[in-house]
């Protein structure tokens, strides 16, 4: 372009937002995040446990909560070539803060283990890498669909398939969490008589449901619905705050399950809406 028209060329093509990442970049980014998270949380935890070192619970929990909040607040966007614009930070930040608060507050209800991290924290610590890889799979499929199809109807059919598959992947934590919560109230007599058993199972149910809430908030944020993600993230907080006033853990489990189910409906709306930004 000659000197007089360098700027006009910039008006459209050069000032256009940078393309959203393609499948390969998404995969590399997901692997980097998994590696970083593993180095920050589960690996030190495992090393400390193997070494028999005393484990303080709060740092691990805080690290996991901050990680979840940050991953929602700064979620990569789906792969429409111009999807990166315009990027607004208000709602993603609200969603991220809410999710971090939920993770921390719910964790306060778990019984303190005599040695180290209570088992109810484990689902979150070890589910995050799986969540990252699942998110990469979903976003990569969206990106691939944009490239593969040149027919809008076929593309919409593909998106419906992807939506159902993604929802199917989000259901197991809900089913597991609800099943665990139900089990906690109907433990066999011998176990039910044990003072810690119902609380332990209920805490596990809360831990699993908490992972599901994180996954749904993350998906909604990546699908350009940070407001809905914030709704899902903040829903369980009133119940979690009640822990300080002696609210039973069962109420938290119900609040998480309700948030989770609501989130699934909202996720279905975002996934199946034909006008949703890809």
């Amino acid at each position, binding site marked *: *372009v*000659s*000197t*007089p*028209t*360098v*700027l*006009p*060329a*910039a*008006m*459209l*093509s*050069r*000032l*256009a937002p940078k*393309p959203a990442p393609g499948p390969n970049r998404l995969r590399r980014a997901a692997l980097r995040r998994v590696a970083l998270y593993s180095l920050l949380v589960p690996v030190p935890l495992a090393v400390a446990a193997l070494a028999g070192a005393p484990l303080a619970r709060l740092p691990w929990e805080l690290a996991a909560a901050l990680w979840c909040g940050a991953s929602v607040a700064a979620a990569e966007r789906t*792969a*429409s*070539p*111009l999807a990166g614009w*315009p990027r607004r930070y208000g709602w993603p930040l609200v969603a991220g803060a809410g999710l971090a608060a939920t993770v921390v507050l719910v964790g306060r209800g778990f019984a303190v283990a005599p040695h180290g991290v209570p088992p109810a924290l484990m689902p979150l610590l070890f589910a995050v890498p799986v969540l990252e890889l699942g998110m990469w799979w979903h976003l990569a499929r969206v*990106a691939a*669909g*944009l*490239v*593969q*199809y*040149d*027919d*809008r109807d076929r*593309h919409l059919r593909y998106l419906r398939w992807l939506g159902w598959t993604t929802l199917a992947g989000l259901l197991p934590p809900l089913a597991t969490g609800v099943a665990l919560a139900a089990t906690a109230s109907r433990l066999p007599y011998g176990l039910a008589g044990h003072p810690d058993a119902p609380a332990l199972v209920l805490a596990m149910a809360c831990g699993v449901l908490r992972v599901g809430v994180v996954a749904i908030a993350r998906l909604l944020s990546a699908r350009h619905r940070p407001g809905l993600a914030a709704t899902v993230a903040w829903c369980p907080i009133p119940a979690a705050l009640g822990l300080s006033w002696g609210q039973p853990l069962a109420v938290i489990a119900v609040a998480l399950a309700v948030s989770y189910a609501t989130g699934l409906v909202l996720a279905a709306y975002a996934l199946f809406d034909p*006008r949703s930004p*890809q």
Partner: protein
Amino acid sequence: VRVAVITEGGYPYHGGGASDWCHRLVSGSGRDRYAYELVALTGTADRPTLAYPLPPTVSGVTAVPVWGPPVGVAGRLARRRAHRAATGAAVLLCRGLLGDDPYHADMFRQALVRLAGLAGGGAHPLAGTPLADVLVDAWRASYARGGDYSRLSVGDAEAAAALLEHALRPLAAPVPAVDACHPTSGGLPLLVALAARWRAGIPYLLTEQGIYLRERYLDYGAVPEAVKAVMLRFFGALARLGYAEATTVVAASRFNQRWQLRHGAHPAKVVVVPGGVEPARFPARPEDPAGRTVGWVGRIGPSADLLTLIRAFWRVRKELPATRLRLVGPTADQEYERRCRALVDRLELAGAVEFAGPVDHPADTYAAATVVARTSVAEGTPYPLIEAMMSGRATVTGDVGGVAELVGDAGLLVPPGEPAAFADALTALLGDPARRRALGTAAAARARAHFTADRMLRAYDHVYADLTSGVTRSSDLTAIDSGVSSGISLSDLSMSRERSMIDSGRGTR
């Protein structure tokens, strides 16, 4: 005479050759009989700072952001109606892009007429419409008819639709009450002038310093090929429409004029007005400076092809070791400058090549240069070349665009992109003072005879007089008022799918 000068990404917010030309146009001698309104298309909604002092002849500046947030129609019902109408226009627009014959050109025109009518209230006409869907369907229909267009995936269509939606936003730009519009390029400024013409019957004069369409062909930026194809078809159709609707088309060179004629401009409408600079700012200095220096003035970017100049200079240094190269001007592309510096280091020229950056007095740069070189691979109107000629410097330039008719026999022309040819020409001039002086004297005489600002401004006085005395057609206004195309309707096109898309109101994204 009130004139709206419409610029894109340049005057008065950014400097450069075309901006300098614009500034000369609105502030030159004898301009006090005009009142100029500037309509500047900018990138984002942030109002940039002025790069030029506004002369008293400029009565107002309107910044129109192309990449700002979208502006919709107020009111739910009105918005719904506008979306339906805009979707119908989008169908015509996308179908009109697919052919170069008069039938498609009329579809394209009718689309823009409708969109200009919709944008009269300041709302961006295509915001919220399912333009990507319409584009995909139009492209698929073209395959069915045997069209040989590149494949347009859904993702490509989304990207192209976003670019098209922003590209058409200038249709909503407010145009002050003026007697004439003067878009300064054949791209987006044309849309402002076209809308003013269709809405208020204001005639316009189109000036192209470089050919906008040609420059988009040469470099559209890093977008997928299919997206580029859509946008180039859009700019091609827009240029043809712009030439057809303009009262007068001004080319800065015969080379540009040939492009305009090739794209449908009527020969009777096209006049050639070369750019010009003030001779007083660039006095001829026949004496050679101390030492041997090759000077270059411009913007550092890929189109300047400085890599060729540096490679040529490396060859020159083998023949004439004491020669220096001085590169003057701002950097338009940081990455390209890094590549240039890396090449300088690799060729061990670090002590001999100077990146001087922008300077306040370019005349001193020419005075300090023994020979001025220019290796651009594309040129609109190369003002630095005119300035160098006016300063009495011998020049070596690539034979691109209108450079040959500008230089004439007063400088050396070589094929672009060939370091050996540039090196031979530079070595010949640096080693032959008599020939260098003869060429410098001829260049100064030629520049003063043909490329002065006064001469350019006098020519524009005549063009403005012709423009404002003309009679405008009123048939186009009728088309907007009735909202019905004169020759084409959706039913003529048997676009049942598009009709259903419009009727179902899929356009509220």
